[in-house]
């Protein structure tokens, strides 16, 4: 008799792709196992999943958010170790770090994909206004100014209503250039740098300047609003996560290009956020541990890497399999891995473990800074104070 595995996930957007591509591929390779993809809205996912795990009714396979949220699940014994899953060696330590214990000894989720930040732009708009792809910050703001003057496009499509958009597409997007990627991030965790240091305040100062180039009423503009604004061709530049690519591919009727966050001065090293975002683990209470393991093992395969990356352009495989991307825009994003140094979002590892939660605070701070309701310095101080209240870096 067939065994049915249920996947818990917040990616309800991906439902059709799982149903039409990924699951059939797995089932074909593994007869006797049926898989059901059962997503929850992202806003409800954590609450629903935790409740179900506590009560023992969660699905067999758990889609893992990066870092502490999943680490906590592992500590509570909800997730099993995946060290023994065949094929785990296709991931390097960095890829696994988001789903491993602090000492790196145990990994509890199989990494699936990362996302990269950058800017997508409307090629037609750039041509019409006559601006080139900016390489430095100066050029970036010059371009924005020119587009604004010209008047037929909103220079940049972003809103602060949802808060996370400002933090993720704004602060975490441009920040690595200022704090020098992994160096800065690690120093912060080690307590050697502070959020009040110039390198950490600077991205907020830059962000504050964006306000002039956002659409009317950007304060009430939600993330879907921004997407629509750009997709409808009303805006020239869109601070993006690579996952936006698939949305725009189906909706935009103009040519698009992408550029990585402009650097301070010509010739500076560029840094990009290549953030381990999604992985999958096994529910310790699963009634079918064998089959679950089988599925996880399949996730490490080249097959899966190919299907996933190509059906969800913008989600880039974390494995070391060669994946040929068919989507040119996605390929453009991946290419930056060669040009720039990569890092992950600064707030995710360790620093959001306590209360107040640095990630959540960063959302508010980023939105406030753009809205002008808080100065970059005050925001930074507030964040650092919050962090200090519970975080004592190991000496």
């Amino acid at each position: 008799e067939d065994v049915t595995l249920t996947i818990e996930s917040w990616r309800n957007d991906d439902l059709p792709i799982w149903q039409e591509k990924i699951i059939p591929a797995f089932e074909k390779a593994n007869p006797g196992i049926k898989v059901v993809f059962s997503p929850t809205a992202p806003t409800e996912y954590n609450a629903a999943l935790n409740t179900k795990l506590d009560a023992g009714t969660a699905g067999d396979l758990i889609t893992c958010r990066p870092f502490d949220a999943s680490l906590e699940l592992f500590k509570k014994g909800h997730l099993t170790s995946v060290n023994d899953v065949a094929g785990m060696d296709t991931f390097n330590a960095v890829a696994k770090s988001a789903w491993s214990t602090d000492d790196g000894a145990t990994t509890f989720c199989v990494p699936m994909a990362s996302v990269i930040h950058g800017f997508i732009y409307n090629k037609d708009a750039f041509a019409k206004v006559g601006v080139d792809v900016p390489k430095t910050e100066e050029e970036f703001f010059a371009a924005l100014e020119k587009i604004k003057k010209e008047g037929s496009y909103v220079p940049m499509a972003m809103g602060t209503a949802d808060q996370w958009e400002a933090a993720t597409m704004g602060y975490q997007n441009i920040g690595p250039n200022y704090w020098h990627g992994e160096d800065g991030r690690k120093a912060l965790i080690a307590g050697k740098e502070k959020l009040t240091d110039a390198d950490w305040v600077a991205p907020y100062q830059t962000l504050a300047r964006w306000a002039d180039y956002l659409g009317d009423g950007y304060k009430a503009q939600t993330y879907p609003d921004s997407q629509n604004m750009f997709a409808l061709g009303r805006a020239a530049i869109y601070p993006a996560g690579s996952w936006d690519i698939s949305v725009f591919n189906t909706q935009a009727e103009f040519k698009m290009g992408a550029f990585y966050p402009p650097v301070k001065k010509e010739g500076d090293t560029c840094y990009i956020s290549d953030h381990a975002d999604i992985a999958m683990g096994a529910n310790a209470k699963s009634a079918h541990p064998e089959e679950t393991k089988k599925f996880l093992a399949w996730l490490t395969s080249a097959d899966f890497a190919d299907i996933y990356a190509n059906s969800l352009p913008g989600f880039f495989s974390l494995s070391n399999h060669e994946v040929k991307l068919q989507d040119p825009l996605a390929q453009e994003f991946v290419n930056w891995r060669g040009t720039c140094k990569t890092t992950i979002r600064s707030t995710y590892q360790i620093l959001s473990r306590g209360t107040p939660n640095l990630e959540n605070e960063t959302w508010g701070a980023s939105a406030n800074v753009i809205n002008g309701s808080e100065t970059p310095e005050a925001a930074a101080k507030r964040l650092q104070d919050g962090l200090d209240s519970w975080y004592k870096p190991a000496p």
Partner: protein
Amino acid sequence: MSEPVHIRRPRRWHIAVFLAPALLVYTILMVVPLAETLRLSLFTEQDQVRSFAGLSNFATLFGDPRWAQAFWNALLNNIEFFCIHMAVQNPVGIALAALLSVPRLRGRAAYRTTIFMPTMLSFVVIGFIWKLILSPLWGVTPSIMAAVGLKWLFGPWLGQEDTALIAVSLVSVWQYIGIPMMLIYAALLSIPEEIIEAAECDGLIGVAQFWKIKLPLIMPAIGLISVLTFVANFNAFDLIYVSQGALAGPNFATDILGTFLYRTFFGHQLQLGDQHMGATIATVMFLIILSVVAFYLLVIQRRMRRYEF
């Protein structure tokens, strides 16, 4: 003549039979789990070990400036949220009911049905509808306001700290206005026709009649609605969660006790759920609501005159 004898009445088992199903379902599925949860407010957890903590969670909530600041912010917002309902929802609801109860009004049923309709919609739908409508991008509201020459008044209300709470409250008012309207309407109908006619004969018509005759007579209903509004507002959560997100932006300007509790209890994004602090907040909320309801039941309701018509 023989002495009267005393005979005991048999036990009334049927009372138990009538009560049992409701009490069982209610106790098992509601009271026990909730009590279980509220009990957590007296415990804390270190490394997956739960231990008794006395009132220290409450000390944290009120003593730790971060918790306290968030709590008071939520409480004040919640009070504002409630005040806006009291100031808008109930008066407008009463006014609508008063209009509906005008005698021999044509189309009464249609008005009533339509105005009650938003109450039937889910938060998801309402949150979404109003985000769309108020969205500067879609431009429905700006163009309507432009049509009446008020375009300059328009702003991204849901996104500004000083307007977001008011805007969300008004959406909530829009949604719930049908309830006070219906209840007051029923109360107005129960005023005997002859009292109204006596007032007509006495020269009290229209607004004067409403203030001097009807309003005093529906006071008990208004009291009831106020309490129901209070309870509903201090339990509210969904609408803000749907329209402003779990962080109740901008900058916690729309954070009320419900969202604060939810975020704390269940966690959010990278923030892990803290059942103990969540339960602490829930207990405080429970006490606030309980004390207001008790105050109403024991003090206000008893003083309020009820009229038998």
